[in-house]
């Protein structure tokens, strides 16, 4: 067992445990905090995968932006001293079965798939990513800005208090 594998296992356990906590824990704020932990673990995986930029972007977008948004959402939609309610819907067993079936399927594919692993060294990711984004993927890049703008407008429109 090498250091990389060790690190992977630690991170994997961290990710999976915190992900499980996210979907089961009763308190939503705790769920959000576990979500942060999970995201941080994924960022660590990206570091292992030599995707520095993505690791940093993961922190910036998921932890710094999305989780803050979610925390906001939680605090705006829940009474602070909210009563305890069951966290799971009544059909949670069916959901578990569905998710389990899907998991089996995914595992089957993941383990039996014949992937052509290349042994070339990876590129310097940041420069390559930047160049790729403004050359080959410039159209999706511009579209992404449009999508973000639409999301911005949509979110403002949805969240605005219409009585005012």
């Amino acid at each position, binding site marked *: 067992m090498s250091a990389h594998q060790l*690190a992977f296992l630690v991170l994997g356990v961290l990710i999976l445990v915190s992900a499980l906590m996210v979907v089961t824990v009763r*308190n939503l704020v*705790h769920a959000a905090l576990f979500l942060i932990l999970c995201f941080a673990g994924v960022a660590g995986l990206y570091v292992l995968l030599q995707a520095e930029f993505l690791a940093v972007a993961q*922190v*910036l977008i998921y*932890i710094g*932006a999305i989780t*803050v948004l979610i*925390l906001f959402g939680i605090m705006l939609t829940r009474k602070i001293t909210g009563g305890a309610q069951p966290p799971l819907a009544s059909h949670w067993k069916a959901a578990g079965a569905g998710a389990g079936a899907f998991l089996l399927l995914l595992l089957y594919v993941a383990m039996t798939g014949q992937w052509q692993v290349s042994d070339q060294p990876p590129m310097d990711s*940041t420069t390559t990513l930047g160049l790729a984004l403004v050359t080959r993927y410039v159209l999706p890049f511009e579209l992404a800005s449009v999508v973000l703008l639409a999301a911005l407008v949509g979110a403002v429109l949805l969240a605005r208090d219409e009585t005012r």
Partner: protein
Amino acid sequence: MNLPITLTGIVEGALAPLGLQGLTPLVVYLLDALIILLLLIMPVVTILIWLLRKMLGFIQRRLGPMRVGPFGVLQTIADAVKLFHKEDLFPANADRVVFALAPFLVFVPAVLVYVVIPFGQGDGFVTKDLSVGLVYLTAVTSISAIGIITAGWSSDNKWSLLGGLRSAAQLVSYELPMTLALLGPPLMAGTLSLSGIVAAQQSVWFVVPQALGFLIYFIAALAEIAHLPFDLPEAESELVAGYNVEYSGMRFGLFFLGEFANSFTICLVATVLFLGGWHLPFLGGLPLTSWQTGLATVATMALLGGGIWYLNWRRAGWTSATRWHWLGYVSAAILAAIVLVAGLVGFISVVITLVKTSLLVFVLMWLRGTLPRVRVDQLMSFGWKALVPLGLVNFLALAFQAATGIPTGWVLNLLFFVFVGWLLLFAWRKRWAYSAVS
């Protein structure tokens, strides 16, 4: 300057028998953070707090701490000792885990930032010169908002919740203009690495072509660290003390520490990104030899020491000032001697960076002593309606300049200077008018 025995080497040597060499970078990273925490943050924050109190005292025509140590330099340490001794209180209905965790969520990012900041010239003065350093910087600083929200929420107190939400809103809002302003330097330098950005400022500091960006960054950063005039989250008169009202003891100390570490951080980042880092003014184009640097440093230190001495003389009278002012000269002399003898360019570059940073810190304190707090709606509308559009225009102008070579960025800055000049003229005339009336 490179130490003959590097941290990496030591760690690798220690891990090799275990077969875990792969973990070396991670361990080095953590160790570095620890070293930074112990050797940099703690002393710097200690000094900063003392300096702030002295400065505020000076501005408010009083002495500030004078009891503990010469000029009260040990006051902060005394305060820290006091904080350690205080009881660590938990509110009755608090979410204990989150409550305990929140201060670290604020403090740890403040420390992690230092990993990528180059303090001086050479590899020895930056823990990890990430190729995505600037993104890392913004990413890490954005984490502290979570700490603030959770601190406010877990206290189970509506004032702290409101304070937490408010400050999170503020942090999220001002992150936008700050990031927009931060995009300028890498655009000109062509790299996201902070060392690369500093190196690109050898001939011209980015504050010259990007004065507007510098100003936007500085204002937004003030709001990011909840510094006056944007210290809404801690508005005592409105929210008791905001998200940290229920905290006591060292947990409160962590918030406090994080806050001061942050104010040092933004000045450091501003220095690195806009003020040329370790480059000296007007010497940028020259090869930086040790004795030139040494002379410049001595001159700067002498000026600073003389300034501090002068201020103290003005405020404290002869007694204390005459007793201690030689300290400044002696330290300057020792420094100069070290520089001249050893030719430690790298070390000098650290000193230059820190001097610039302290000048900015001085400005920060100056602001703290003079400006009133803004209202929350003013805060939001200023951020969204003034800084964000300005930041966008600035970024567009710079990007256009970078892409086409048409100097739109320069033009924008010129306009900005004209505007500032006009404002100053206006203010001067107003002042003149008032003085004429009175």
